[in-house]
């Protein structure tokens, strides 16, 4: 008769990148059940929207998370712009898309490094992050900050990228694509890495749908879903490639994210080719009066922003539903029946971003 014990995992743990706490009920090294406990990074940012002017709240919104920072700022601005019926100049939209896709690349590269660290391959972790430095340098060149850009504002963007900088972005991305090919071959082809990723944490298509998985988590189980196909911003003018796989294991999730890096690099090249000249912001008067729902595709999946205004300077309600919040039940499902040693890898494959989840 095997005995059940409970192992507390997190919030501080050497391989855990995010402060989530899981009580793992295990039976002889197999996880039977996982009980989550979140709330370690709850900063009450939604409540802060009631006391910060809506034009200044952008700076708070982009600090909800460090990795998805730009998209949070962009989503907040898009939600308020929709309430106020502002239509942005096309150049501002293209600039936002370029920064958003660069954010996606840097987030996936960071995730790959953390995944390699989770199964003990520190050299690969460092290689991914060395490559990521190039993207962070691009951010600093164009926005002034490596992690928090402070470049989105309601009505447009605050800084322009001139033709020289766009050329630099193009050439750096071409180099990144070549070096990334090397890392990709190791992740997808190396026997030891495959041993740690293949057939681990399988989530079938029906389970992914029943648990409401979003983003690469859903796409790697065969569900074709990408919020960018709705055509927000200027995505309807740039051909999108939705990358899916059907196996639903950790290897598939890794492969989907790697392909997304390539797809984002191509998307940025296309955007740089098509970017029009013109203004980068539109002036507005007044305050938001009404409500809106806006959905974006963050690196981790679909994010939803809900803004309610009543005509005063302070918003009535601001709500963010982040993709990790939606992927948490899927995480609890894939942990069941798996061995304890694979738990860090599985937690990482949902790409947790607990700062976003708890705001």
């Amino acid at each position: 008769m095997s005995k059940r014990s409970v192992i507390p995992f997190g919030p501080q743990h050497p391989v855990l990148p995010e402060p989530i706490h899981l009580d793992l009920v295990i039976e002889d090294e197999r996880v039977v059940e996982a009980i989550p406990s979140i709330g370690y990074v709850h900063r009450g940012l939604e409540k802060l929207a009631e006391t910060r002017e809506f034009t200044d709240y952008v700076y708070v919104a982009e600090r909800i998370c460090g990795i998805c920072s730009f998209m949070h700022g962009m989503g907040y601005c898009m939600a308020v712009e929709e309430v106020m019926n502002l239509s942005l100049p096309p150049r501002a939209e293209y600039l936002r898309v370029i920064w958003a896709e660069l954010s996606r690349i840097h987030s996936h590269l960071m995730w790959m490094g953390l995944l390699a660290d989770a199964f003990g391959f520190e050299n690969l972790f460092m290689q991914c992050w060395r490559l990521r430095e190039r993207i962070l340098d691009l951010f600093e060149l164009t926005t002034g900050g490596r992690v928090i850009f402070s470049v989105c504002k309601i009505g447009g963007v605050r800084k322009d990228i001139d033709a020289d900088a766009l050329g630099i972005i193009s050439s750096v991305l071409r180099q990144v694509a070549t070096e990334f090919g090397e890392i990709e071959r190791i992740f997808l082809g190396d026997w030891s890495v495959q041993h740690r990723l293949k057939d681990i944490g399988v989530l079938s298509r029906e389970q992914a749908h029943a648990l409401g998985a979003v983003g690469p988590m859903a796409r790697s189980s065969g569900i074709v879903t990408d919020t960018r196909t709705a055509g927000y911003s200027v995505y309807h003018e740039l051909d999108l490639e939705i990358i899916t796989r059907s196996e639903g294991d950790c290897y598939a999730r890794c492969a989907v994210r790697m392909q997304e890096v390539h797809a984002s690099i191509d998307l940025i090249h296309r955007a740089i080719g098509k970017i029009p000249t013109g203004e980068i912001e539109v002036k507005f008067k007044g305050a938001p009066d009404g409500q809106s729902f806006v959905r974006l595709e963050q690196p981790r999946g679909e994010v939803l922003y809900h803004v309610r205004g009543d005509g005063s300077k302070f918003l009535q309600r601001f709500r963010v539903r982040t993709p990790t919040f939606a992927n948490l039940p899927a995480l609890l499902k894939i942990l069941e029946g798996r061995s304890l040693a694979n738990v860090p890898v599985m937690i990482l494959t949902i790409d947790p971003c607990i700062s976003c989840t708890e705001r």
Partner: protein
Amino acid sequence: MPFIKLVKRTLKNLTSPPATRLYPQIRRPAFKRTRGHIAWDDSCIFCSICVRRCPTGALAVDRAAKTWRINRFDCVQCGACVEVCPKHSLAMRNDYTPPAAEKTVDEEAPHA
């Protein structure tokens, strides 16, 4: 062969210089747009618009004493104050406030 993929990278690692910099002896030159710290000049009229718009509350202005104070470590270098200043007295410089053991408050006043 699985380990051939890594042999090339390993040999490159052995023969090339380190990817990291020996900071603080060697510093990376900042980019032109890097948001380092806020600089003040004496065209300031002490209207306090920057104080109201600062998202972190890092600024303080004393109109009577004619001083402008910034808490260097509360400032997140967002640039909101630079944009709203009616006299363009504030500017974003590209060098960072050096690390310190305590939070420092810098006070600026017009030269006599």
